[in-house]
Structures are given as C-alpha cells and as structure tokens.
C-alpha cells in the first residue's frame, strides 16, 4: 500500500489498464517522449512500446477524431488533451461524433474512449489553462463525465472509465495532482455514477466535486469549530450519470443545500442540482439551493484567481445565507 500523488495514481491506472487490455492505447501531445507535461504518462512508452503510447502532432481535433477511428476498429483509446481550454478545437469531434456515434449506429458501435483532460484552475496558469468545461459535456447527450477528487478515486474511476464502453470525459483537477493518498493497486472504489458522502452532517448539504472537495472538507472543519455547523459534504465523482439519489437523501435530512463548483455560475452544475432539488424535493426544502461558484466572467489572470475562485469563505458565506432561511 502506497501513498501516491494523483499524478502517480493516474499513471498507475493507465499502466494497469494497458497491462490488462492490449486494446488500450494512450496518446496525445507530449505524452510519450516526455511523459506528459504533468508527467502523468511517464514511462508508458518505454514499458508498452510505440504502438501503445505515442505522441501526436499539435492538433486536438486529430487526437479525438483518430481515437474515434481506432475505436471503430476495436481499440480502447485513452487520448489526453493537454489542458482544459484545448478541448475546444476538438469540440466538434466530441459533440458531433464521440457523443453521437453509438446512437447513429443504433447501438451497433460503441465508443469506449476515455478523454483525459487536466482541468480547472488553482495553479496560477496562463489564459486558457484553467477552464471548467463540465457544462459543455454534461449538456451534450451521450457523454459520461467523471471528475475525481483524490488520488485513490482517480485510480479507480479511471480504470472504470477505460473499461466502460461509453465515451468518458475524465476531468482531472490539476490543483490536486500533487496531493497524496493511499492507493491500493488493483482494488476499486464505488463505480462511476455513485456519489460519496465524504463527511456526514445535518446542518447543510454541500454538493461538490473535483478540486473543491478538499476545500469543502476544510470549510466543514472550520464551520464545525467556529459555528457549530455540521456540514454534509457530497463528492459527486461523476456528473453524468448523476447520483441524485445520494444528493436527495442528504437534502431530505438537512433541508438545505449549497452547490460548490468553480466554473461560471450561470448554467454551471449548480443550476442543474438546484433545478432537480426543487423539482423532486419541493416540500423538503427549508431554503433554496444556493450556489457558491466562480463568476460569469472569463477566467482571471493567475495573480487574481484566488479571489475569483470560490473558497472556504465564499462557501461558508453561502452556507450562512442558506441558514438564514427560517423554517415556517
């Protein structure tokens, strides 16, 4: 049992998947010779050879488009897009083909492709390197969307994603890349589509995912200490499928919910969770679902991102606001 960073855990998952299944191929920009700009794919080319792990020309649409061709011939591609913002040149291949091929072929053709994307902000990157892209994929029917929050979860969810016959957009929170956790090679955690309550509580349900799970847990600790609030923290883990049951169970208990995500607020995941909560739990809500999120502005320059990103304070302010709704 080893304490691995998320980078190492993802590397381990790729390596295990390639070992288990010869159809798994890993490729992208700078993934082979260099082992990835974050070293996530380090050593894979040496170990599995040029045909299983290779570099691609600087062309994102080509990375996804050729993966689709490989999948048609029975492979299980795991392409990497170097950064969140560079999924955009591949948007057409993802939305028009990756997401729709199974449907177009009336179920005959699977698209067992996992698109790995180092994602989200928090590490002071230049423009276009800190985008929250999940809304794009969640709204596009036909894609699964997985967002791990820790090393062990990343290991398990990535193996699940690669084995899954549906296309998965796998968003890796860069800011958690170097956080360590015990990872047991070969064991799995909850499958894709299951949210996990990371901390139980009774005051307010905090629904989050990815890099903000750790922030929410920290906020919950502080809230308990300073205010005596018992926050329940739910890690969604996958946004499609969405485990709304786990969210609902929590809300039924607390009556209150704050969604915590870092992308822009309008039509971020908070909107969908809020819509679902009031639709399905109208009589259970003691307060509206509130959103602690990024702003509806372009992602800011590195020096200012800490003020843009929702952190402990914005979350606790929002929790406080939720608590300001009195029972009638």
């Amino acid at each position, binding site marked *: 049992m080893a304490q691995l960073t998320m980078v190492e855990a993802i590397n381990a998952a790729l390596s295990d998947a390639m070992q288990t299944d010869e159809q798994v191929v890993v490729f992208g920009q700078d993934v082979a010779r260099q082992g990835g700009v974050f070293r996530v794919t380090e050593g894979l080319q040496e170990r599995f050879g040029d045909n299983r792990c290779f570099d691609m020309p600087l062309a994102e649409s080509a990375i996804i*488009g050729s993966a689709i061709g*490989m999948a048609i011939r029975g492979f299980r591609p795991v392409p990497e897009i170097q950064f969140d913002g560079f999924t955009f040149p591949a948007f057409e291949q993802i939305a028009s083909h990756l997401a729709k091929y199974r449907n177009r072929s009336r179920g005959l053709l699977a698209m067992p492709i996992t698109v790995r994307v180092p994602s989200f902000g928090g590490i002071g990157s230049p423009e276009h390197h800190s985008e929250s892209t999940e809304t794009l994929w969640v709204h596009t029917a036909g894609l699964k969307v997985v967002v791990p929050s820790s090393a062990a979860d990343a290991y398990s969810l990535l193996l699940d994603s690669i084995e899954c016959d549906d296309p998965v957009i796998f968003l890796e929170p860069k800011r958690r890349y170097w956080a360590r956790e015990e990872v047991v090679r070969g064991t799995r955690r909850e499958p894709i589509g299951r949210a996990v309550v990371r901390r139980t509580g009774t005051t307010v349900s905090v629904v989050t995912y990815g890099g903000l799970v750790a922030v929410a847990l920290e906020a919950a600790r502080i809230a308990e200490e300073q205010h005596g609030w018992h926050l329940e923290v739910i890690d969604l883990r996958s946004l499609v499928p*969405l485990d709304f049951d786990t969210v609902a169970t929590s809300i039924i208990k607390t009556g209150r919910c704050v969604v915590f995500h870092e992308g822009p607020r309008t039509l971020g995941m908070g909107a969908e969770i809020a819509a679902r909560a009031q639709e399905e739990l109208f009589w259970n809500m003691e307060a509206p679902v509130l959103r602690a999120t990024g702003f509806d502005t372009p992602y800011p320059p590195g020096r200012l991102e800490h003020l843009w990103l929702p952190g402990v304070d914005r979350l606790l302010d929002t929790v406080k606001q939720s608590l300001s709704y009195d029972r009638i």
Partner: protein
Amino acid sequence: MDTLIENNLQFLQFIDENGVATRALERDKSLSNVLPGMYATMVAARQVDEEMINLQRQGQLALYPSARGQEGAQVGCASALRETDWLFPQYREIGVFLHRGIDVRGIGLAWRGTWHGGDGFLERAVAPMSIPIGTQALHAVGAAMASKWLADEGVTVAFIGDGATSEGDVHEAMNLAAVKKSPCIFFVQNNQWAISTPLADQTAAPSLASKGVGYGMSAVRVDGNDVVACHVAVSEAAARARSGQGPTLIEAVTYRLGAHTTADDPSRYRDDAEVTSWEARDPIARVKKFLETSGHWHDDLEVAALATAAELRHRLREAVVDAPDPSPLEFFDHVFTQPTAELESQRQLLAAELELEG
C-alpha cells in the same frame, strides 16, 4: 509508379470522353474482366440515384444528394479495394455503397429520416454517412493506424469533397496520416462545387492533388469521370499503403451534374452551359463506348445491368415507401450502454405521452 505526381496538373486518364483509350491499359486483361461489372454498378448507381430523387419528390424521403456524374469516381475507387478495407464516406457516395453491397433499404431509410446514419453500413466495413464536412477523414486515419497495429493489411479510405479540403479537420487528417505513415487514402471527389461555391472560391491551389506536397504525401490527379483511371490510381495507392509506404491523396476530377441536394436549385448560381459541357464527359457513356469499341461489349451486359438496376429501384421503393418509423422509445436505448436513471425517467415520460395519444 509513374502515376504519382508532385505538384503539377498532370492528369491520369485511360479512357477519354469519347471512349477512346488514351493510354495503354497495362492490366488490360484483368481490367476487361472487371470492367463490365463496374459498368453495371455505375448503371445501378445512376438508376438508384434517380429513384431516390423521385422518392424525395413524392415526399417519401426528406432529402437526397445526387451523385449523378460521379459514378465513375466512386465505382472506380470502391472496386480497387478489398471488402475488408474500411471506408469513411461523406454522404454522396451511392456508387460506393452499391459496390460494397449495402442494401438500398438502409441507405433509403437514412434519407427518409427513419434513423441517422443508415443501416447495413458497418457490416460492410463502411462507416455511417458523415454530415459534418471533413470530420470523417480523421476517423479514416485512426482506423488506418489501427490497421497498422493489427497488421491486417487493411487500407482505409476517406471520401471527401473539394469543399471539404478547406476544413481544418482534413488538414489535420492528412498531416497525421503522413506523419504516422498510415495506410489511408484520401479520395477527393473534386466535383467543382460545394453547394454554390465553385472551386476557385474554395482554394487558390493549382490542383487539390498539389496539397500532397505540403504533407510529404504521394498524390495523384485523375480523370474522375474515367472509371479505369480511378480504379488504377486507387489500386496503386492501396498497394503502397499495404506495403507500409503510407498514405496517398487522390484528386478525382469530376462534376456534380445534379443539384447539391433535392433542396437545392443550382440555376441560382451556375450556368447550364457548364453542366452541358460536363454531360458530354459522362462516365457511364464513356465506358460503354470503350467496351463497344474494344470488343468487350455484348447486349446481355446492358440487359443484365438494367435488370439489376431495376431490381434495386424496386427494392428501394418497396423498402422506403411509407416505411414505418421506429418506436420513439428507442431514443433512450442508444445514448449509453445502459440508460441512466435520468434517461429512464425521461423514457417513462415519453411512454406516458404516447399512451395518452393512443
């Protein structure tokens, strides 16, 4: 191989528009064996094309993009490949589909709007028709890369149009194929028009084949209305690809004799005179003349070709006219391997709506 060009307007042709051989058919024998079959498929393609247009006019199809005039390019290409070679069509490749033996039913139902992508394609190693222009070229390259790893000697063909060559995806595909030496053929049907946009507004290149230079890719420009030239060019490209020599770009110079689709009115943007001049270069008439003058013609050939074509037209009509729609509940079946809970509840909603309506 003397047919490959590097940046010039050289134009590979074996049979000219009068049906006269302009170049020695090295493989004369083998070609004369297959040419009658190719002729029959071209005739069938032309006829099925006409039937599709009729069916659209009768409200049985939503839309149809005629391939009239491009049968030589299409059948010449398809006939030069193995059945197991994966093909990635755009949408106008009726000649390719028929050569591959795809059931007209599955093609017709796609244009009826019964289901996207058609039916019976994958079983014949043909990808479903691809509407977003140029995108399928990348699928062809990925499949070619796969063939190389599988060492199955497979070649893939990306069918693209002159318009498609302007799209970024086609560039990325050609570049990738050349870098990876993938066994992929880019078969461009340069039919001179992309809807209302003529070639001159699409590119300033001396030829589309000349684009091969900048990818370090073999390229050839052929008379796309000469089924033999297309057949030879694709045969050679496929042989090269199979032997590890990488991709080839083939520009088949042809013409879209009909409208872009049944929804289009080309009189708004092009002269009849141009169409007439290309009608004189019809790919079907030309083979027939050649077969006649070269002594390979016999009337049974025409009779058989027309009979097959008639049968296909009949089968198409039977399959398509008032064809039943699938259950709309199928919407939810093919999104994922298993529908999510959310999809399940949406299915129930629709099921309830359908029940209410009776």
